[in-house]
């Protein structure tokens, strides 16, 4: 390939204030983390509640959660984002609509849409993992929990969920990484996260290869660090003699 790589491009001025292009990437990374992390926390909470619902004897609760999963898992993420950003605001009550469309900064309304979208999408996937984690436990565990006098809530809180979450840390790690990667859809509704900043840099400088190479490296390092974080968590909560924990 006959291409003159110019890595200095990131240190050149963007022409806006004293910013250099590297600042754009840093700010983009900040938005990526802000979107993914908040969406992840919401997804974890909603997904855990739904996952528990799927295992309850109450048929209505279980089918509601099952329906939720089918809906959010079978519609492409991008379609969901457009629905949340373009369609749903039109159906909000009038006051809320004015607030969302006119009073909020465009960046803020895009941020809210993408966080809601990613959180609800990922919640469906977390739900399935929490459900399988609970169902993977021996039946006798719930019997024993009830036998000592726990009510249903205590049974989940003290016996089932602490074990289920330990089991599903590896697949949850994948979802945790996915939500960071999926957050790049935000670039399509104008939120200047990492991918949007990369595209903008490429257009401003015509150094497309350098820009996307840097973006690739940033995503890669970010996800490797998250994986490291999750294996640290896994080691931290490992119990001797349980699921491969050393005796």
């Amino acid at each position, binding site marked *: 390939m006959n291409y003159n790589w110019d890595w200095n491009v990131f240190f050149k001025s963007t022409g806006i204030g004293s910013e250099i292009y590297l600042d754009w990437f840093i700010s983009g990374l900040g938005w990526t983390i802000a979107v993914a992390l908040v969406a992840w926390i919401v997804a974890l909470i909603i997904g855990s509640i739904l996952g528990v619902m799927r295992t309850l004897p109450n048929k209505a609760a279980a089918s509601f959660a099952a329906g939720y999963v089918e809906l959010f898992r079978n519609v492409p993420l991008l379609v969901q984002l457009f629905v949340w950003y373009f369609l749903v605001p039109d159906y909000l009550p009038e006051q809320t609509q004015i607030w969302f469309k006119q009073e909020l900064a465009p960046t803020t309304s895009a941020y809210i849409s993408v966080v809601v979208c990613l959180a609800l999408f990922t919640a469906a996937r977390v739900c399935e993992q929490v459900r399988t984690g609970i169902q993977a436990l021996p039946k*006798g565990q719930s019997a024993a929990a*009830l*036998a*000592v006098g726990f009510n249903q809530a205590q049974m989940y809180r*003290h016996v089932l969920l602490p074990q289920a979450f330990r089991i599903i840390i590896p697949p949850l790690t994948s979802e945790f990484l996915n939500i960071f990667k999926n957050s790049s859809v935000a670039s399509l509704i104008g939120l200047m996260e990492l991918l949007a900043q990369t595209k903008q840099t490429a257009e401003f400088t015509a150094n497309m290869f350098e820009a996307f190479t840097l973006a690739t490296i940033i995503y890669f390092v970010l996800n490797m660090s998250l994986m490291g974080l999750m294996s640290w968590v896994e080691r931290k909560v490992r119990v*001797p*003699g349980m699921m491969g924990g050393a*005796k």
Partner: protein
Amino acid sequence: MSMISIKNVSKWYGEFQVLTDCTTKVSKGEVVVVCGPSGSGKSTLIKTVNALEPFQKGEIFVDGISVGDAKTDLPKLRARIGMVFQNFELFPHLSITENLTIAQQRVLGRSLDEAMQKGMHYLDRVGLKAHAGKFPGQLSGGQQQRVAIARALAMDPIAMLFDEPTSALDPEMVNEVLDVMVELAQEGMTMMCVTHEMGFARKVANRVIFMDRGHIVEDCSKDEFFGNPDARSERAKQFLSKILQH
């Protein structure tokens, strides 16, 4: 007064009837052994006593409280009945100490100090005080089952249910668990035990119940059950001849 009273209990899984018109009772301080072939319904019967298995017909009273009544506070009732399972079912993510104290604290509302004192007392009784800081996965099967017995006793139960407590154990570990159970029986604990350990039955049982295909076929004193084989039903004779052969 009978501590556990089972009256005309029937239970179906869909079309299949697992319990048919079962009636028996366990008096205070009595030790009743329930035996019978696989699939005879003995585990199901014992689990109806603390409502781990619902039943469609009949009545069960524990200390005068109706188990089948929808108004009964089941967690409260279950907390008063100790249960020991075939597969121990200690909570593997909790240390032995936590296994012994968590229900005392969360269900009975005892303070940590009180729960610890009680837990350690019973852990000492089953001879495992030195293992308090370990996790269930670090103990042998026999040790885990002894902890499970201690966990149940720490709740100060009015009766204990044992569901094949030695069936999942290595042969070498059966006795350490039976020893604890014998001691418990001799102290006057009300016990209902599903087990094939006929030696245990001979030693401490007051009565023996024999079940087959969901029916209570025999319900008589230990002496009658073992001492008068000719008076037993054909099915019971067959069963006994097989398990007592060796």
